[in-house]
């Protein structure tokens, strides 16, 4: 899932500037699961904004709404009528949701209340870790199910760098060395020889480096209306 983290209140206040009427828009999918931008967080943030703006002497009217998915037109379209009542929408969705709102409602300004952090999972309650970089060319099949693009600080494809020690990354002892994990999996399955093959330079053009990406599935497209 997409993992996000709420921006500091101070930063949000700065973004809102002198807006008087604010709609906080939560999202019911990924950011709800990671407790960053769901219905509950939207309500808490809305009330924090009301209090803070009042304390600072320029009270805002803040309402909140949460849609099932801010990244799909059908879920955000019903908001259309409400938006004219507000100076600004503060979205608690990921960056996709924020952009969807701006794209679908070009006359309204939607600002981000979250930092979209990574694609990952809850390792345990209250801890999320990155697992995927959406590089567009999955190599998990040759790295025993552990991604060095997302989990090695240097995105190495041919084994660990010299900074791997005691199972952790040189960057931070809280980061497990991806290549240590890959090596252990290879050992477990008795397939170390698969790691001895030289992996050629990666084709980054399928990643973000090739420019913004797009998928067109002709088999799924609807016929154009007459």
């Amino acid at each position: 899932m997409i993992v996000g983290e709420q921006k500091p209140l101070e930063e949000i206040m700065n973004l809102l500037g002198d807006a008087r009427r604010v709609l906080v828009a939560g999202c019911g999918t990924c950011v709800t699961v990671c407790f960053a931008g769901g219905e509950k967080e939207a309500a808490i943030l809305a009330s924090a904004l009301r209090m803070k703006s009042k304390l600072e002497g320029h009270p805002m009217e803040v309402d909140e709404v949460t849609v099932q998915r801010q990244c799909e037109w059908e879920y955000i379209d019903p908001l259309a009528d409400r938006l004219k009542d507000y100076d600004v929408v503060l979205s608690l969705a990921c960056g996709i949701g924020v952009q969807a709102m701006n794209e679908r409602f070009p006359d309204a300004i939607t600002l981000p209340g979250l930092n979209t952090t990574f694609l990952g999972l809850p390792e345990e309650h209250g801890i999320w870790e990155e697992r995927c970089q959406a590089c567009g060319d999955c190599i998990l099949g040759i790295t025993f199910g552990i991604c060095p693009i997302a989990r090695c600080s240097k995105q190495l494809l041919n084994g660990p760098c010299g900074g791997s020690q005691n199972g952790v990354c040189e960057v931070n002892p809280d980061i497990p060395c991806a290549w240590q994990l890959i090596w252990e999996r290879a050992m477990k399955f008795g397939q170390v020889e698969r790691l001895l093959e030289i992996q050629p330079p990666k084709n980054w053009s399928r990643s973000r480096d090739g420019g913004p990406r797009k998928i067109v599935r002709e088999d799924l497209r609807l016929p154009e209306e007459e």
Partner: protein
Amino acid sequence: MSEQTNGYKSGSNLEKLLRAGHFVVTAEIGPPQSADPEVIRRKARLLKGVVDATNITDNQTAIVRMSSIASAVLAMQEGVEPIVQMTCRDRNRLAMQSDLLGAYALGARNLLCLTGDHQSFGNHPTAKNVHDLDSIQFIRMVRDMRDEGRFQCGDEIKGVRPRFFIGAAENPFGDPFDFRPYRLMKKVAAGVDFIQTQIILDIPRFREFMKRVVDMGLHEKVYILAGIGPLKSAGAARYMRDKVPGMRVRDEYVERMEAAVAGIPKEDKKARKEAWEREGIRIAIEQIQEIREIPGVAGVHIMAIEWEEAVRPIVEGAGLLPRPVVE
């Protein structure tokens, strides 16, 4: 092999000496965090005639310094053969190849292909890193430029090819330990000619690593230079033991450095410094003598970081002067 290089891969002094079977000595020069050419010249003069070639580091520990290629040219002007270090951290494959063409055109003949320390260690921790290639892919690219006359994309190099003697690093103290010799094997398969190891302050572990390397026959395919890092103080020894990722320092070295200043009052900083430096140099000399006897070791690489003055007494003390000359 080409006519221009008389049957050598690059024709560098380092390559010729290794090929002739000499026990080689390399050192390193860290470029300044300024545009002052005199820093390189001064360091180069300290090393001239003392070592066979000297590494020129590339923004080491991710701190911005004078370009390794520019510094290498300055070193050559002082009569010191450079080993240009290049990391995968700061350049993509276009920039790497372009700089390799330039470095060769300027006379550099040795190259050390590195992954690079993570930028979070340096003075620009908010920088974006590159890592378009990893060090093994980098080695293969340089070899293909030299031996196949092709750029990484497959296009032919029309005209002069950059013919580097290709080096890489290996850390016998990194983990997973069992993977390390295989990683070296991959570097050999990619086309590396020589290896410089991480600073060795755990000789038994290095011995075990070399045993595996020799058992795999890798020492016959690549020249391995053992990393020597003279200790400057007890604090430095403790720091390397406790804080530097990928390093292993046996307690005996820390204890020897601590004992070196026993009886010297803390206020007498000069006497303590001198005592530490004497002991650091003595340890380095002893290490070279011990490591020389380990099968598969073709030379030493002395990393006297910001202490280039230590290199001559170490090389001299180890009985490695004068340096051999080959034509």
